[in-house]
């Protein structure tokens, strides 16, 4: 038996409530300092985010209002069906997203390392980290869900109590899947540390397959049967899984439907409100129950899991990929070898950063899935062409988020390693060119293939396919030029976090310029086909400028303008970036 020493008279172990108050104070200070910092240093970004969120919210509200008006006229059960499917899929997404966020904050962050060396309870640390990850994982749900639910309330002429209950319903619902995700994460880190990636992938694949199967069966049945009563019955039976009475998503949708119900008299209205409150109580009590389980799990397994994750052994790199790198380094002339070496270095960094390639894979994968299903719908020729241009814009917008998030910070991230590059026999221009080539080649291959897939599924004419591919090429060049050029003009060599670099002024500017460029490109090539064709049809017989613009010469002019502007957008930022980067003192 070893004697223990008393602690210094000025220190003491805190009671759970006192510990919770300390963490609350910490969170409040962090939020206050972040808001203050944003108001002082990132006003443009804050204003843009607020404005875009408001526009997004209003657009969603409009879409949902129209959709509910249409769906409400179809069948009384359709809205309940939609709510259940929507909230059930959201529930699954929240489980995964909160699990991933919990892993990042509780096992790999420096804050976790600090907190675990303080006399804090494991469950208090879990509670603190959980609130943080809950906020990050659920703000999207509030942004997406609130316009939908407000539109539903307006359509149903719900009383004020419905709107008051919205937020409590949403929060109490979100807590359940988010806690389940965190519990799974803590359990996997502690008891399946070596297999956690496999377990995660298997779970994700199972949920993804179920979602794809459900989506596929719905799309196929619309394509073959149309929106008939038989289709509706079949759909209801297919989605019966999401209407299980033990699912929190069912409690949420039932509670909201009851809250929005307008009774024929006061007694009926009261009965509906009481039913709604019962569902809210069900959500709150279950939320509290899973929180208790989560805290218990953290007490039992958090420190053990942290030790297991921290003490992991590294994995050897994949040899076939290394051979691919060797091949890439050795093809071509010796004069261009430094650029190829830098390209291979960036390729390796990309491959080893799960955050980068997984986001690219998920977004492009989802797009591919959507494009594959385009052939199941029946459109007329005008719609096919319009959807083709919209798909071009979507591909461009997704690529612009990647170039802003991953390519723009690349020059800044060389900051800490600048001395290595400075000592190598590599001209600074070659560094900038290698980033441009990396972004351009990395973007043009998947984007042009995706567009080709979209156009083939839409059964679009060959001439339009060629135009789309030219636009895609120009977009990839322009977006890469903007991201690399602005990144070289406004590098932040002290910052190590790519997310922070991308969210600064330069990153925001890059995103805004990229979005304007995409809108310009798509509008200019879409105009001759859609607007001018319509105007030409309405114009009196004889010579009309619209007729010329809608013809092959008009189209050729539009493509010419896009190519010329694309070249300017590519090379002006690049030239300015090269000049700034040559003069940079690291």
């Amino acid at each position, binding site marked *: 038996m070893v004697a223990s020493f008393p602690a210094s008279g000025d220190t003491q172990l805190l009671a759970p409530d006192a510990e919770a108050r300390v963490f609350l104070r910490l969170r409040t*200070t962090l939020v206050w*300092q972040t808001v203050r910092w944003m108001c002082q240093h990132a006003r443009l970004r804050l204003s843009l985010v607020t404005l875009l969120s408001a526009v997004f919210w209003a657009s969603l509200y409009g879409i949902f209002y129209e959709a509910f008006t249409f769906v409400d006229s179809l069948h009384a059960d359709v809205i309940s069906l939609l709510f259940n499917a929507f909230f059930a899929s959201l529930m699954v997404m929240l489980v995964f997203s909160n699990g991933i966020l919990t892993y990042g904050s509780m096992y790999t962050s420096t804050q976790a390392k600090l907190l675990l*060396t303080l006399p804090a309870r494991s469950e208090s640390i879990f509670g603190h980290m959980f609130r943080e990850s809950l906020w990050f994982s659920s703000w999207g749900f509030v942004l997406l869900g609130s316009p939908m639910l407000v539109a539903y309330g307006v359509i149903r002429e719900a009383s004020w109590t419905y709107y008051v209950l919205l937020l409590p319903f949403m929060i109490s619902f979100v807590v359940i899947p988010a806690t389940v995700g965190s519990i799974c994460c803590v359990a996997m880190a502690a008891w399946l540390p070596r297999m956690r990636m496999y377990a995660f992938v298997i779970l994700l694949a199972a949920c993804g397959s179920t979602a794809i199967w459900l989506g596929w069966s719905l799309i196929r049945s619309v394509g073959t049967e149309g929106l008939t009563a038989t289709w509706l019955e079949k759909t209801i039976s297919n989605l019966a899984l999401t209407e299980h009475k033990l699912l929190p998503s069912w409690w949420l949708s039932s509670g909201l439907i009851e809250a929005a119900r307008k009774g024929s008299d006061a007694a009926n209205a009261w009965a509906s409100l009481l039913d709604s409150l019962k569902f809210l109580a069900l959500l709150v009590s279950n939320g509290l129950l899973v929180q208790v389980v989560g805290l218990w799990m953290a007490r039992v397994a958090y420190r053990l899991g942290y030790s297991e994750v921290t003490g992991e052994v590294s994995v050897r790199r994949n040899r076939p990929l290394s051979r691919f790198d060797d091949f890439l380094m050795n093809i071509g002339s010796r004069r261009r070898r430094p650029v190829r070496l830098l390209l291979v270095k960036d390729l390796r960094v990309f491959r080893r950063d799960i955050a980068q390639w997984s986001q690219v894979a998920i977004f492009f994968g989802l797009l591919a899935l959507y494009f594959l299903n385009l052939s199941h719908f029946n459109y007329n020729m005008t719609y096919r062409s319009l959807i083709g241009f919209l798909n071009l814009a979507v591909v461009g917008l997704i690529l612009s988020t990647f170039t802003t998030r991953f390519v723009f910070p690349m020059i800044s991230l060389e900051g800490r390693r600048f001395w290595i590059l400075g000592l190598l026999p590599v001209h600074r221009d070659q560094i900038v060119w290698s980033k441009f080539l990396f972004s351009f080649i990395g973007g043009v291959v998947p984007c042009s293939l995706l567009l080709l897939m979209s156009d083939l599924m839409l059964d679009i004419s060959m001439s339009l396919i060629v135009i789309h591919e030219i636009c895609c090429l120009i977009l990839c060049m322009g977006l890469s030029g903007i991201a690399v050029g602005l990144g070289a003009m406004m590098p932040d060599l002290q910052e190590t976090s790519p997310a922070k670099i991308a969210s600064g002024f330069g990153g925001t500017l890059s995103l805004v310029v990229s979005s304007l460029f995409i809108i310009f490109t798509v509008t200019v090539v879409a105009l001759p086909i859609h607007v001018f064709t319509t105007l030409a049809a309405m114009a009196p017989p004889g010579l009309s400028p619209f007729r010329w613009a809608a013809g092959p010469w008009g189209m050729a002019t539009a493509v010419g303008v896009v190519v010329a502007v694309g070249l300017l957008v590519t090379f002006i930022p690049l030239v300015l970036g090269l000049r700034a980067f040559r003069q940079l003192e690291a």
Partner: protein
Amino acid sequence: MIEFDHVSRSYGSKRAVDDLSLAVLRGELFALLGPNGAGKTTTIKMLVGLLRASHGAIRVCGHDMSRSPREAHLHLGYVPDEPCLYDKLTGREFLWFIADMFGMPRHVTQRRIADEIEHFELFEFVDDLTERYSLGMKQRLVFAAALLHDPSVLVLDEPMVGLDPRSVRIVKDLLHEKTRQGMTIFMSTHTLAMAEEMADRIGVMVRGHLRFLGTVGELREQMAIENTSLEQLYLQLTAVLPESEGSSPAHERG
């Protein structure tokens, strides 16, 4: 004050720390030396509760680190190799948070924070967000935070990294004063001169084994080499065959 009782830790098939038994007494400054991959950082991480020992027990002031970590942490101050701070807190807010976590009364916290700001000369930047600090400024703040609650045991992992010569002097003087007052200090370092200058005892780890434990004088005696520098003694002691092929721990640095 610090006790390692037959402690081992493995990473996969590799044993990073092998059957370590060691006791560090009150008021003693102990320096752990060793080449890269010797097991120093693993030992420190186990001592502060970030890693669990595969076998054996670690006690801080009599409290078992794996069974009652909170009680053990109450006696412990830790300066990691890389400063762990909240970017969006000022230095002063960070010190208040640490004091609150140790349950210190407000009037004591105010006095101690003022003292630490003076000791580590933080007054010029203590009210700025820590994201703007240089590595040296961060390290000074972490030192202040580790000493704020006047711990019985201070654990330092490569403590002088990033500090300028003046700050190094301040830290060395402070560590001497603290050990005179009875604080136990456990430090890992690559700097032999610092170990020679400051440590009461040193331990030399090689491939997870504690190859030597004693004073620098005893090391010289044991190696039976006259007029030889500590550096030469150290190099002889740590001379090992090249690492055999196999996986290496992802986070093992020291």
